[in-house]
């Protein structure tokens, strides 16, 4: 474990901004005593107090300042809908910061971030944190989304040295997926960097690892899995990983969420 103190907090909603038809920027007043989280940490939000939906919903921390805890929320089902409807002044139960690993800093080197959909959130937290700590040189974001609307306009433009956008329907930016876009940017010499960081759908991360990671010194990724406890107890969120003596299952919530992407047994990933 990264050894961070975690806890249960009551947090007051301080803002709810609509970034697109599906995406919300939810800002909470930072609860008293909420520990200093690092890029890759997440929280688990209890969106209601009735048994439907039942479980807490996991969300990457998009930013944590002295005063605010910020989440980027895409409405996809009943839990995220309730969270997306949060109003200023509402109180919610938040467990966190969770996660046993965090993104290792680029140590002053150039870094490429690939965020698929709301996988953008931990990429923003990493870029902001390292900017504050003057820990990276240049930061390039490749943000892939299905449509132009989901690219969220110029949101987070100032957090990176340069932002590259791609859409699957070609409505904005590069026409195609983020991985092909990154491949072509590298080929053209438009960007070069030694560190690769990613977060997004498993298919995207897998393809990054298999197709482009050799162009970088390292590839760290934050994975998602359906979670119940969020703390490593229930063993519900496992991913297949490589180990010296064979394969092992790792819990995304407590052995991750950040993994060296070469550690994951991608051929066994569902």
């Amino acid at each position, binding site marked *: 474990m990264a050894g961070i*103190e*975690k*806890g*249960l907090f009551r947090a007051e909603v301080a803002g709810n901004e609509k970034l697109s038809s599906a995406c919300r920027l939810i800002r909470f007043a930072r609860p008293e005593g909420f520990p200093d989280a690092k890029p890759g940490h997440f929280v688990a939000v*209890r969106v209601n107090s009735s*048994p*439907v*939906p*039942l*479980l*807490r919903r996991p969300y990457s921390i998009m930013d944590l300042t002295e005063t605010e805890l910020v989440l980027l929320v895409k409405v996809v089902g009943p839990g995220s809908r309730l969270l997306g409807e949060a109003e200023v002044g509402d109180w919610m139960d938040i*467990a966190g910061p969770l996660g046993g690993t965090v993104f290792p800093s680029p140590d002053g080197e150039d870094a490429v971030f690939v965020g698929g959909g709301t996988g953008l959130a931990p990429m923003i937290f990493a870029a902001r944190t390292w900017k504050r700590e003057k820990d990276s040189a240049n930061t390039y974001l490749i943000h892939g989304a299905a449509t132009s609307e989901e690219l969220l306009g110029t949101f987070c433009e100032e957090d990176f040295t340069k932002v590259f956008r791609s859409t699957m329907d070609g409505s904005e930016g590069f026409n195609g997926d983020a991985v092909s876009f990154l491949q072509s940017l590298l080929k053209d010499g438009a960007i070069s960097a030694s560190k690769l960081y990613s977060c997004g759908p498993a298919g995207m991360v897998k393809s990054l690892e298999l197709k482009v990671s050799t162009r970088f010194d390292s590839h760290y990724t934050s994975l998602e899995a*359906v*979670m*119940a*406890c*969020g*703390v*490593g*107890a*229930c*063993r*519900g*969120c*496992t991913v*297949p990983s490589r180990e010296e003596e064979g394969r*092992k*299952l790792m819990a995304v919530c*407590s052995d991750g969420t950040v993994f060296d992407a070469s550690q994951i047994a991608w051929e*066994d990933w*569902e």
Partner: protein
Amino acid sequence: MSTTGSIKVTIGDILFDNPVFLASGPAGYGEEYDGFIDLQRLGGIVTKTVTYEPKAGNPGTRLQETPGGLLNSVGLENVGASVFFGEKLPRLLDRGIRPIVSLAAEDWDGYRKLLDAAADTGMIDIVELNLSCPNVERGGMAVGTDPRMISRYVGHAKDILSGAAIIAKLTPNVQDIGRLALAAEEAGASAITAINTIVGMDIDIRVKKPVFKRKRAGLSGPAIFPVALEAVWRIVNTVDIPVIGVGGIDSVDDALKFFMAGAAAVQVGTAIFYDSHLPEKIVTELEKNGIPASINTEGN
């Protein structure tokens, strides 16, 4: 079971400060919930079921929410006897947390080795035999649905862990859970825990496949509370040993209902995932107003 003054309960010869435990599985090995749950406030925790050899558990999707419930197909992933007895258990004991050790086996040979290892530790005074996991190919429910097997497993545990309290945890996936409870009692069990998860399944309509590799999974959470309550009521009417109620506790009131059905103690499982303070709230309520008396006098 006896209630001594406050809300202490005894199971076998073991005295617990209160009758509220975490259920095996959701409780993990206890240490995971630091910062969330004050385990010293609870009567104890039932540790994640351990098998002799470590188990990796089931591949593929392991969790799926249902309305008011949770399907899981974890498949008894655990660290195995040697790490559990060597590292996890001593750590709990050092911290003053009261463990009830949950044990299971895939076959008789594994069961014998596990019990010998447990006996060798010299640390174990109470165990819960998981005779009821629906998520493994062998052992689990195959043993737990056959009264003769239950009696053989309980009897062997009595022999090897002499002096320890043996609790039999039963599956609701049978016609008459009372009969299984009776078999456990006759074989010398000190208590019965009911219920384990209920077999269920789900289908992913986009890919036209069952959600879980093993198809079936175990349902827990508020959705199963009425089933658990009826099982406890029925077992209380069948045996004289204490019954520990588990299944779907979602509120303090649910816990009170188990006591009214005649349970001597309760375990909270799935609810700690979303309302981690619930077990402590139940303790606080019992401290304030005592343990409700059983209203279950049917047949006695």
